[in-house]
């Protein structure tokens, strides 16, 4: 690199206008990287699909029963494999945490872009970046030591403190930075003419936010929430520490519950490769993958609708 910059402009011109060997090499190199990314994605999909379908193809489980039965009894003499409670548990914590983190995150984004940009830059921006950096096991650990006893002592409906609610709160805090960062980007990329036009018409700041800015940024804001949901959906260890891991369908927010990820981490080590128990865990992994696909599709749909 240094050697080449010391060449004279003329030499460089001659060099680069010749057959361009560097150009071809560079092109091959970057294309190779792009190819690696494609291969990685395809092989993950392929291998997980093969492994995840084994419980249905090799062990002959009924896929419909797996998806829609709520009976999970892998160890009884007549084993039943219904993953519905875990699928619903996963969806429930994901949606609930999006309900909490969504408004908070977007509200924080609006504060940072519309109300006080200077506080936003100096205080909130670093705060959010630090929140992103806290490892999820630490969130789980704090949830376990603080939140679980708190819930147990506060709500009489929760005997142990391990509950859907606890999981939801931990996840909400976890995905808050994701939602906030993307929502902030969305809000700050709105052209100033929108704000000025609305304010010039005599609208208050709140009216401008509510009637002009939020509708304009809506698809991007939704993307922010969906990405947050994707993160919540895939989180394993933090949730496992606080949710209770029960295979019954939760009747209320204060009931313990389980998610696909928690069941996978709990049982992976105990089961032997190739057994039905083990294969059903891979099937759950496949479900996680498919739902990630769905999240991507939603994001694609939303970004196609982006107006600005």
């Amino acid at each position, binding site marked *: 690199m240094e050697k080449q910059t010391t060449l004279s402009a003329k030499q460089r011109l001659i060099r680069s206008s010749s057959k361009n060997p560097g150009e071809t090499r560079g092109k091959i190199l970057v294309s190779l990287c792009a190819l690696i990314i494609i291969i990685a994605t395809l092989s993950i999909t392929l291998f997980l699909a093969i492994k995840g379908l084994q419980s249905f193809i090799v062990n002959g489980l009924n896929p419909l029963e797996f998806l829609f039965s709520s009976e999970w009894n892998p*160890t009884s003499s007549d084993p039943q494999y219904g993953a519905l409670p875990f699928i619903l548990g996963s969806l429930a914590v994901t949606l609930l945490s999006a309900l909490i983190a969504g408004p908070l995150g977007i509200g924080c984004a609006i504060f940072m872009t519309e109300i006080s940009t200077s506080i936003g830059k100096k205080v909130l921006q670093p705060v959010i970046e630090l929140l992103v950096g806290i490892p999820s096991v630490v969130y789980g650990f704090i949830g376990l030591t603080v939140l679980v006893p708190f819930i*147990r002592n506060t709500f009489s409906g929760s*005997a*142990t403190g391990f509950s859907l609610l606890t999981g939801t709160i931990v996840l909400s805090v976890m995905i808050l930075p994701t939602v906030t960062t993307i929502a902030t980007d969305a809000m700050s990329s709105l052209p100033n003419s929108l704000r000025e036009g609305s304010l010039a018409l005599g609208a208050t700041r709140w009216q401008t936010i509510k009637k002009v800015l939020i509708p304009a940024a809506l698809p991007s804001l939704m993307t922010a929430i969906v990405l947050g949901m994707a993160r919540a959906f895939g989180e394993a260890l933090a949730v496992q520490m606080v949710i209770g*891991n029960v295979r019954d369908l939760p009747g209320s927010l204060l009931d*313990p519950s389980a998610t696909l990820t928690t069941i996978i981490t*709990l049982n992976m080590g105990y089961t032997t490769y190739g057994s039905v128990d083990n294969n059903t865990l891979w099937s759950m992994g496949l479900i996680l993958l498919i739902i990630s696909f769905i999240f991507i599709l939603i994001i694609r749909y939303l970004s196609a609708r982006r107006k600005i």
Partner: protein
Amino acid sequence: MKKIVTFLLIVLTIGLVTACGANNQEGGGDNGGNNTVLISGSSAMQPLVAGAAEEFMAQNPDADIQVNAGGSGTGLSEVDSGAVDIGNSDVFAEEKEGIAAEELVDHKVAVVGMTAAVSSNIGITDISKQDLIKVFTGEITNWSELGGKDQEITLVNRPDSSGTRATFVQFGLDGATPAEGITEDSSNRVKQIIEETPGTIGYLAFSYFTDDGAVIPLAIDGVEATDENVISGEFPIWAYEHSYTKGEPTGAVKDFLDFLLSDDIQKGLLIEQGYIPATDMKVERDAEGNQTNL
């Protein structure tokens, strides 16, 4: 830039070469004449085996013993496929599906007794087996029905496939499926929950009942949960900790297993960690759970 490209190439080459190399020697866990012993399996047994490995390596500086944890299932799978030399398991290999149990040689290293655990303020220290089953299947829901405090019962379970759960269900509940309760993977966590949450019942290995007395073991049918009662075969809920090898062990693997069964470990580290020496047992059990006197 050049450097980055070179880096990338080196990394890719290393990756490819080692991938091929490793593929060729798959199944070569028993590394011929050298002194490396690879161990995998039960995370509950890991402290014991790792501790023994430390002592063994202190006495035999050439030996290199690597103790991995990953769960009993992983251990059995890996010893079965030849990826490791010793696979530790909380359960008999016969109980796990997909394992060629007849090819594996069982070395019963230790015995662990376990019993139902409750908080000391429940007011109960003894439970009959019938009542225990009723508690765990959800028929009895309040401690007052058993003469204890007026307090609702909450269950703490272990994951479906865990060895502790399998043992407790088989010998404590006579095979009855426990009703749903919180499921925790860790004995520490179970103990903590029992301590902090009024009215919870779970099951723990004897070693977790410490002197502070906040969490107490329940006697079953009047038999106290003690090491002596397990050794004599009177107390029903106990299990072996197994170390499996594929075929009869040789070389360093055999030396290490002999060391595990020697008095150094059986009368030392093992007891220190709350296990019962397998060599002391006066009864024996097979994979079906049939108990015979020795």
